[in-house]
């Protein structure tokens, strides 16, 4: 059955239109994987495909930067040049732009890691055989958002003290007058509770939806491959290709947005409250 996580592919391959079987639509079950090792039902440890992809992705990132930056040269080779361009883009284009050069330098490694990590996890979506964005499992964006959240909260405390922290978080501003309590309540919830959630979910939902779309058109291409349906299957296949290209773009954009938001949060924590 399509909901059975034990299946290798995301859908049943022996089902076509006019064969009397329904369309095996993608759904939540497409994001569930039978563990390669261990048991997912209990509370014990297990190991499944997204985990494998996550670890593999880490190794690929480290391997790439190791090859590029382990023995860097003043006159760079091709690989080093590419890696430097990526590094420089995040350092100058994101961190220096939002936090500033003096304060931001300390956070460059974190932001660079976040960007390339998220991007790699997103990229898995269109890499043949893997074809699954790790970030469409909430656990991974959540971990990253949590890291950023902890950093943000501790930074705000360190910079402004206890009272300053609440002033910073609630957007305390005397000139608001009567609206101040309402504004402070909203700001408090928005910053302290909703923000980490949206930070994680923004990435998760984008990847989730993207993967579902890709699945939809891929499954449809196969499912329609019968009789007159072959014409529709062609359209669906073209859509699959278009959506794959679109996903490639979205993956980079989402990684960029994730680190840009992180920088904005850090900048907010470091800024003097007004």
């Amino acid at each position, binding site marked *: *059955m*399509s*909901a*059975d996580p034990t299946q290798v592919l995301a859908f049943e391959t022996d089902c076509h239109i006019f064969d009397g*079987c*329904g369309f*095996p639509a993608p*759904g*939540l*079950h497409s*994001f*569930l994987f039978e563990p390669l090792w*261990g048991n*997912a039902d209990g509370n014990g*440890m*297990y*190991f499944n495909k*997204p*985990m494998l992809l*996550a*670890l593999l*992705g*880490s*190794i690929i*990132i*480290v391997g790439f*930067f*190791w090859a*590029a*930056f*382990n023995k*860097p*040269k*003043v006159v760079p080779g091709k690989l*080093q040049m590419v*890696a*430097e361009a990526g*590094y420089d883009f995040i350092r100058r284009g994101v961190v220096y732009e939002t936090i500033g050069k003096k304060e931001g330098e300390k956070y*460059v*490694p*974190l932001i*660079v*890691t976040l960007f*390339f*990590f998220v991007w790699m996890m997103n990229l898995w979506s269109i890499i043949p055989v893997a074809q699954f964005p790790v970030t469409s*499992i*909430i*656990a*991974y964006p*959540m*971990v*990253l958002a949590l*890291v950023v959240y902890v950093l943000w909260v501790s930074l705000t405390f360190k910079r402004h003290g206890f009272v300053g922290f609440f002033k910073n978080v609630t957007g305390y501003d005397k000139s608001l007058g009567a609206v101040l309590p309402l504004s402070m309540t909203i700001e408090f919830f928005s910053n302290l509770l909703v923000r980490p959630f949206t930070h994680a*979910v923004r990435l*998760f939902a984008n990847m*989730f939806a993207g993967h579902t779309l890709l699945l939809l058109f891929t499954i449809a291409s196969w499912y329609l491959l019968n009789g007159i349906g072959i014409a529709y299957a062609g359209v669906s296949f073209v859509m699959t290709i278009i959506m794959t290209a679109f996903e490639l773009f979205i993956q980079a954009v989402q990684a960029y947005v994730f680190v840009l938001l992180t920088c904005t949060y850090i900048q907010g924590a470091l800024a003097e409250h007004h």
Partner: protein
Amino acid sequence: MNSALVLLAAEGEKENPLIPPWPEVVIGLIAFVIVFGFLAKKLLPNINKVLEERREAIEGGIEKAEAAQTEAQSVLEQYKAQLAEARHEAARLRQEAQEQGATLIAEMRAEGQRQREEIIAAGHAQIQADRKAAASALRQDVGKLATDLAGKLVGESLEDHARQSRVIDRFLDELDDKATTAEATR
């Protein structure tokens, strides 16, 4: 398919996509920490060092170029100053040479004048002496010729007498005086 939906519905509570299973959180954290560890501790410091070196190399190159330029400028100025000095010196030398030449010419002219005058004076003295010699010789000869002529006319030798009486000398002196006065009046 129906049973799949039923299965999903049954698992709906448990498989909320927004509730992360903790093993995935752990693995996610591990994966992230691996990347962060390598990048933050080793690889990014590496590349930062090299980028700094590169920056310094470029700035050093610029500084070197600037130094070379200033040196070239100073050398050019030095050269120009030297050239001007040399020109000045050459003008001075020319002036000096001209002056020296002028004095030399004047000296030589004076010397030439002196020599000419000397030569003229010597010539004059020579002429004077020659004239005197010629005059005395002439006087003798004329006296002799006159006495001889007179002797022949008179028929006797007047030589001794003439010599003794100095008649001839007197006559010639008169002639001389006449010539001198004639010259003076002229």
